[in-house]
């Protein structure tokens, strides 16, 4: 089943220059799709379009048979619930004035009226927070701390916990490991893989690190200068017909 269908997406910031140029992609249920490319290739712009924080200039994003542009309030709210995100910089993604537990509870409290959770149970705020912290392998006590008291890797785990707390269908991971050091990077990648196994959501994993993408994803898409150059199954990464740029990327790692 297709979770999201992106067709001929275009986005431009300066007239005559497309940051995202005619990109078509579909994301299947339960898969991780990797999106690789260097800085400035348009991968984050694409993510921002998918999150609905950027207006698109052409093409469509179809979720649940409805193009995002035509979605009414209720449909857009449903979209917002089901498409969550984890950004590169966890410090900027957490409100410095809120305790970790309050940041974690926020999405649930926003959506609790329409929400039916399958994997988590909400009996009390405290219990829910502890459940989430446990899933991302953090000690329970962290709920009462503030973001600045946590390490980068811990903060990123918190933003992951927050993203999965309302059991979305798709999580857009925009360079989630880029600001972490190697050991935390490896650990976060493993956590993401195991969460996907238990919760079954899809990932769009955006990174410039082809090796990290290879580790987590089943399918890999390569972007350059706003265009989608290549998309392939992980097993086919070594294939004579791969795009020259993909081959260059492979040679780096």
């Amino acid at each position: 089943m297709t979770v999201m269908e992106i067709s001929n997406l275009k986005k431009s910031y300066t007239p005559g220059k497309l940051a995202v140029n005619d990109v078509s992609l579909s994301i299947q249920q339960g898969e991780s799709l990797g999106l690789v490319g260097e800085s400035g290739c348009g991968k984050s712009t694409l993510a921002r379009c998918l999150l609905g924080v950027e207006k698109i200039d052409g093409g469509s994003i179809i979720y649940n048979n409805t193009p995002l542009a035509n979605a009414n309030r209720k449909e857009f709210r449903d979209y917002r619930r089901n498409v969550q995100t984890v950004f590169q910089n966890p410090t900027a993604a957490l409100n410095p004035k809120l305790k970790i537990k309050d940041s974690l509870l926020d999405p649930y409290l926003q959506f609790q009226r329409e929400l039916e959770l399958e994997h988590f149970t909400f009996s009390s705020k405290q219990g829910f927070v502890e459940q989430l912290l446990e899933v991302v392998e953090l000690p329970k006590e962290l709920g009462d701390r503030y973001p600045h008291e946590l390490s980068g890797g811990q903060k990123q785990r918190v933003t992951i916990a927050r993203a999965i707390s309302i059991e979305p269908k798709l999580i857009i991971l925009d360079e989630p490991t880029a600001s972490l050091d190697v050991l935390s990077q490896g650990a976060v990648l493993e956590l993401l893989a195991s969460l996907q196994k238990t919760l079954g959501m899809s990932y769009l994993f955006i990174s410039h690190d082809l090796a990290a993408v290879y580790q987590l994803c089943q399918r890999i898409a390569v972007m350059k200068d706003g265009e989608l150059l290549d998309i392939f199954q992980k097993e086919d990464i070594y294939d004579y017909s791969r795009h020259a740029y993909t081959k260059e990327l492979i040679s780096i790692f």
Partner: protein
Amino acid sequence: MILSINDLTVSHGEKTIVDRVSLTIDKGEWFALVGQSGSGKTMLSQAIGQLLGPNLRASGSVSYQGSNILEHPKTEMNQLRGKAISYIFQDYHGSFTPFLTIQQHMEEYLQTHGVKEKKKRKNMIKEAFESVGLDVPLVKRYPFQLSGGQLQRASIALALLLEPDILIADEATTALDSVSAHRILSLLQELQQKTGCAILFITHDWRHVARYADKIAVMKDGKIIESGSKQKLIHQPEHAYTKQLIQAAPTLPMRIKEASKS
């Protein structure tokens, strides 16, 4: 041997950040120092050039050309930095003053180090810019008008202007994407072979080291826990932590990599 560090300790009050580290860097060698955030690798690199903050204290010795440069007076050290030892940093924006053009930075650098003739300075700047693969007109730009990769190239051009004996690169490619990082690394390698300067390359990413380094030292909690030739550390790491570092960085399977080269 170009630089020899003996029992270097950096402390902050009672706390020891770098703990009796000894290492030697040979002429023209690529020496990689690998470790996690907080392991003390940056403090070690800053101690070498007397760049430590006022509440940090360095003891031990760093010998360069037979004298302990930790004890050099400030004026002498100012001369040494740039001419003998130069730095490039992770934060390329922080390496430049935002309201000066790249050219103004380079002019100032050369003037401070006594290059008096204007014409000579101009030529040196032009050559330096070309050597790092940047278009010469870019020299008139302000830092924010260049991309990350371009700025890091400019900071390499600046660092190598006076042909130092050793270049200290502190996480110089960490803030760049892997494609730009790769290009910067191969540029450094090319310049190293051309100028014969040694590189002390500080990184947390094992993969950067695997291709370019001659020697590797692994640092943890302020101590060097293992060091040796690249071959030895990569193929026969002794310390469990070294193994952990190697495993943590994802790599593509070898089979694929080798096949893609042929």
